[in-house]
């Protein structure tokens, strides 16, 4: 097991290397620079600016310098918001996004699995049909349609919930309800379908029949025997779900005007704020890669066959 963990951990290094290198060169070969948006900048000023940010050096030197800084955890100054460093900008926006993302992930896992269990145990009855219809809606309707429609119904027409961050008409908790529900809906739907299908499969497995034959009650069979086997696909879906929540939060944060890292990302991409874009790509990738790593380890514990492959 330890060997498996170490091997998986070592394989993270090339991924992170590729991400840093790719994002650095991708952005540097792009037409237009961070200062090209500013009209009528005198040549001398431009040259000084480039000198200040070491952009007059050969590309390779810039790359090595950047790589070294990143390893030290320093993402440099922001080109656009000149008074603050990238680290400060990200530190300000990060907690909001983490709160939103983890709430959405928790919500989708808890509700997804519960609904999946209920549908599977009531297969082809009204509970199943209702749940699976909701799940298809969750998968088919994009986040950026769900978000505005929920806003339209619950905030504007009914007036039950605050429409966006900052308009705290109710308590502090309520501002997050709509964005969290919006963000979690597609993942909830997918997890519900996934766990329903895998529970249905496990219910027919031999070891479940054995458990029943021993005379165990149905609730014990489900809770002890079915669930553990059925949760494996859900665990392996957590990695992609996490990636989806990261991209989903870009849309949800812009729909609900949440000052999180997703909005900062879109703005920095539009502004060509090189250092900020790279920092965000690296942080998002690191989160994603670490999440995938954790998922693999959990999977290895749940299903030891994987670790010895």
């Amino acid at each position, binding site marked *: 097991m330890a060997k498996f963990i170490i091997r998986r951990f070592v394989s993270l290094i090339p991924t992170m290397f590729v991400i840093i290198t790719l994002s650095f060169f991708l952005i540097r070969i792009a037409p237009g620079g961070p200062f090209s948006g500013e009209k009528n900048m005198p040549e001398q000023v431009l040259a000084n600016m480039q000198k200040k940010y070491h952009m007059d050096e050969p590309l390779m030197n810039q790359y090595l310098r950047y790589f070294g800084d990143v390893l030290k955890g320093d993402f440099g100054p922001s080109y656009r918001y000149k008074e603050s460093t990238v680290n400060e900008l990200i530190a300000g926006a990060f907690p909001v996004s983490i709160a939103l993302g983890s709430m959405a992930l928790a919500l989708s896992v808890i509700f997804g699995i519960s609904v999946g269990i209920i549908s599977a145990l009531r297969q082809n009855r009204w509970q199943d049909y209702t749940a699976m219809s909701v799940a298809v809606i969750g998968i088919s309707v994009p986040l950026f349609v769900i978000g505005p*429609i929920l806003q339209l119904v619950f905030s504007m027409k009914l007036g039950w919930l605050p429409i966006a961050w900052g308009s705290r008409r109710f308590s502090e908790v309520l501002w997050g309800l709509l964005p969290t529900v919006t963000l979690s809906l597609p993942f909830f739907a997918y997890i519900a379908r996934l766990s329903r299908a895998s529970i249905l499969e496990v219910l027919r497995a031999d070891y479940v029949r054995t458990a029943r034959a021993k005379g165990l009650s149905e609730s014990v069979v489900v809770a002890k025997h079915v669930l553990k086997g059925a949760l494996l696909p859900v665990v392996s879906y957590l990695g992609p779900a996490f990636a989806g929540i990261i991209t989903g939060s870009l849309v949800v944060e812009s729909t609900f005007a949440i000052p999180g890292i997703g909005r900062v990302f879109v703005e920095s991409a*539009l502004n060509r704020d090189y250092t900020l*874009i790279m920092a965000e790509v690296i942080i998002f990738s690191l989160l994603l890669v670490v999440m995938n790593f954790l998922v693999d380890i959990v999977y290895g514990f749940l299903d030891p066959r994987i670790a010895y492959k």
Partner: protein
Amino acid sequence: MANENNRAVNEFNQQVKPVSLWADAWKRLQKNRMALAGLWITVLFAIVGIAAPVLPIADYQKVETDFINLPPSLKPAGEVALSEASLNIDRIQSRIVEGRNDLLPALEQAKASYDKLKSDLSVKSTANNVYIFGTDYLGRDMLSRTIYGGRISMLIGLIGTITAVLIGVIYGAVSGYLGGRIDNLMMRIVDIMYGLPYMLIVIILMAMFMKEGSSSIFILFIAIALVSWLTQARVVRGQIMSLKNSEFVEAARSMGASTARIIFRHLLPNTLGVIIIFATLSIPSFIMNESFLSFLGLGVSAPLASWGSLVKEGADRMESFPWQLLVPATAMTVFLFAMNFLGDGLRDALDPQSKNRA
């Protein structure tokens, strides 16, 4: 004799008509009502999209300043615009009755613009236009914008899928067939690319090649296609690996068939089912991705429209003019629904063992 050739004999020595995989799958698909409905809706959308230039609908770029933000109606636009204008006058009047005397000049203005509109419309032929889905903030027909937006969205879905399938199939097939060290290397590359947050890379690509706030649709195609072949490559590789040691491949090899011939003539036709399932299910996901980018302002830009950019425009004005959000959102959702049901149905039909899998 020729007739007997395509008859087979079953284990009870009865003559049976052999059923091909495709005929069998078609039969199974026909039993699945939702999938069939999905198929017809998809075909309908495709026909409307292709035929859009010859359909009797307004030009999707035509700006009509007289008919801004008209609600959906079956009446001629002239009537709708006038009733909207008189509603506006009533609204101001009732506020004045409530004691808002500062609104008196606004009332005069509203009345003047009502009279102007009336005299304008009496000479204009556009007064007879009918906007059954209303108009947007520039007086453009929502119906035709939604149709043309759908054209772009569906085109992106189609082109993205074709590219992803081509790259993914060739990559996966070569990797799976060659095996060994090359396979290892090729799959490591796929693994590393899987680790990339690919939507972020697409966003960077779109932002990079954006000129003065507008991005080219061509870059969008490339950006989406570049990152989307990975799953297909993995799936095809798995299929090829499980097939490559079967007898028919050995037979082909023993007769001197080249590697390319074995891959393209013997192995790939046997994985066609999986490829089709993947392709059908990836069209909606491409459309979602494109709309996602357009929603963030990084995708299709004006005067072109896609479902994503229409939803974005609608969401910005949904409080006063909800139809501007609901019309494109409904069109897009119905299409995505249909494609998802069709894809699920195709999977059940072509690969019955996978039934009940999520």
